[in-house]
């Protein structure tokens, strides 16, 4: 009796799937090498920054609110102690604040107040420095949703009228800081 050598669909899939998956991965890695994200359009740009009132990191009785910054150009930087990319970005924010007068508000995202990260946020700041004017604690990530935050880090540039003018998704790089962020802040400060 001759053995049947017809292949079932499942067998073909099992053989070809690894190669296909790998080619997809290779394509992704290739794009990862060549891509250079600079400007990301966001549905939130040009819209008023969502109002929030959140407890402050070092003084939980006191609150932070968007209203506190009316009439100023300020940055909202979303970060968390568990976020690796934030570490790289943090150095840059420290330098920015040290050399340029601007209010950077930290939004501590799903971090402080979460059982697993007890004390991590403060330890993180003690280690890497604290460039923030004030830090709002968003344990549940509710405010993050209002801002369309999909992950950390993200940074929003907000103008004097409280409107989001730019959004950096992922860690800001030095080049972006010099070429996009600083000119934009200068421009916005001249606006009424």
């Amino acid at each position, binding site marked *: 009796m001759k053995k049947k050598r017809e292949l079932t669909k499942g067998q073909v899939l099992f*053989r070809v799937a690894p*190669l296909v998956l790998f080619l997809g991965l290779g394509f992704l890695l290739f794009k990862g*090498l060549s*891509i250079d994200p600079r400007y990301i359009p966001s549905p939130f740009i040009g819209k008023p920054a969502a109002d929030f009132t959140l407890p402050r990191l070092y003084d939980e009785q006191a609150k932070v609110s968007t209203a506190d910054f009316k009439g100023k150009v300020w940055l909202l930087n979303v970060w968390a102690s568990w976020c690796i990319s934030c570490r790289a970005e943090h150095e840059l924010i420290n330098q920015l604040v040290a050399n340029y007068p601007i209010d950077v508000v930290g939004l501590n995202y799903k971090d402080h107040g979460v059982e697993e990260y007890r*004390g991590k946020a403060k330890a993180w700041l003690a*280690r890497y420095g604290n460039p923030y004017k004030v830090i709002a604690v968003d344990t549940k990530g509710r405010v993050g949703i209002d801002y369309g935050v999909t992950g950390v880090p993200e940074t929003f540039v907000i103008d004097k009228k409280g409107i989001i003018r730019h959004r950096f998704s992922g860690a800001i790089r030095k080049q972006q800081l010099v070429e996009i962020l600083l000119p934009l802040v200068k421009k916005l400060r001249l606006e009424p």
Partner: protein
Amino acid sequence: MIPEIGQFALIIALAVSIILGVMPLWGSINGNSQYIAVAKPATYTQFALMTVSLACLVYAFVTDDFSVKYVTTTSNSALPLLFKVSAVWGAHEGSLLLWGYILSLWTFCVAIFSRSIPPLMLARILGVLGLVAVGFLLFLIITSNPFDRIPMQLDGRDLNPLLQDIGLAIHPPTLYVGYVGFAVAYAFAVAAMIGGKLDVAWARWARPWTNIAWVFLTIGIALGSWWAYYELGWGGWWFWDPVENASLMPWLVGTALMHSLVVTEKRGLFKAWTVLLAIGAFSLSLLGTFLVRSGVLTSVHSFASDPERGLFILAFLMLVIGGSLTLFVVQARKFESSAKFEPFSKETGLLANNVILVVMASAVLLGTLFPLITDAMGIGKISVGPPYFNAVMVPLAVVLAIVMGFGLLLRWKKDSLGRLSTTVWTGLVVSLVIAVVLPLIFAPDFSSLVLMGLLISSWVAFTTLLWVIRQKRSPFRLSGTSWGALLGHIGLAVTFTGITLVSIYTIEDDVRMEPGDVKTIQGYEFKFLGVKDAKGPNYMAHRGTIIISEKNQVIATLHPEKRSYLVQKMPMTEAGIDVTLFRDLFVALGEPLGTEGAWSLRLQYKPFLRWIWLGAILMGLGGLFAAFDRRYRGMRKSRLNIKPVTA
């Protein structure tokens, strides 16, 4: 002069590797035995040349040759000798040279210790390893030459202070030996695909090599975790950092491979799985190299990165993995097995093990590449972080542990729950008692996570013990592979116990202390005596003194430091740690506060932390026992017409 010799040796090694990669493989296809005979001498020559090359680089470091660019960027004349040597692999170029050297070392070992393997098969294996070496050496010579010269400098820019540590001296080489070791399993798999034949003997040849690579990887990962714990200064032992993930993925797939090989050897089944896992383990090792060296992901470990190098590794990756997977598409039909097994059998258990481990590795891969995926979609680099990894990996680990307990007890081909019921119930009851009673006596509060963690850990440990007891053999007559399973599984249980307890019961306190202040954590009194200035060979330090006492008995004096390295001006935290088997007491200096000599301090109590690494050591020992099973040693006498075991 010496660096030129090193470079010269490297280039000849490339030429020899090309010969090794082409001639034996070609000979094995058209049956030319003279070409096949080239394999061994070429391997020996390649190894000798790579040894010369690495020795020349070490020499350049030890003699402070600051006319070599790589030495200048990673070393300094004030560096202690040990760190001058370890600085050889302190950055990109030297790490790659070490990689290449270890690859040639593995190839050399395969050539020496494989007398039982037929020359044709051996020629293919060595040939594939030769091809891998060609890719690596090309990469090394073209993009990352460690011997490049620059005008003589007065002194070097120093080794990154993070890396000036005994941990760095041993962690990367160990890890690389593991990574590169999977190249051997990969070469075995590709050789089997070229020949179109994969039998029991093949599995027996491949098993010890895979086990030894796995042992090194296990120990390497544990060393890395230990190093991060005491050197990064915040008392964490695992950060789900891309580079840590890069070592965890091949470990998971390598673990699956070890188990899949058991089935292939004993039952002649899962051949295609085994081949795929062998390709996967090595691919993930290469992918790890790509991620670390290309700079596509941000990590605390990416000390040097460069997109052009990334492109080269990517091309290499496509050839190595894409090529072997294409071969798999063509040849997989030859690896069909005719043997059958029932749904309730050891085969099913090991299949479940493979699937779970591969799913775990895929989940880690997805999480690690998530920043890349979002980047490619144009929404910026975004990291998912530990919340994702913990949410995914913990349930998978629980399922894995449950299956592990059953899997070991099962028989080949067909088994019944009835036969196992006494053992299973005994294991379950003992585990439940342990998981409920121990926390009630010792723990400060009840936690369902602790219950779960202890339950699965003791389930794994006790089913393993019962499995050994049921074999009714004296420990001295137990086979090497049985010892391997025993130590490996119990080791994992020990690690799980450590992870559970340290995650839930760690106590951390960030405090402000003035000299003379006392803080009490978990019954331990931490008395701060103040901070003094100290001086090391190449750094200045603030050195704190803390006396820890328990019930008015002094148990330890710790000296945490905050160092400032003179060349790179980089602050470093050296924690003070008091260790016992059941708890670590950890003190790190923060910042000076005010003028009264007050400092911010981070105090931690970490129960059972050492168990995490103790488990890894047990697993490593298990792997060694299994690799040196008498069965594989007997193979030298080439009794190779073995029939698959029938239960």
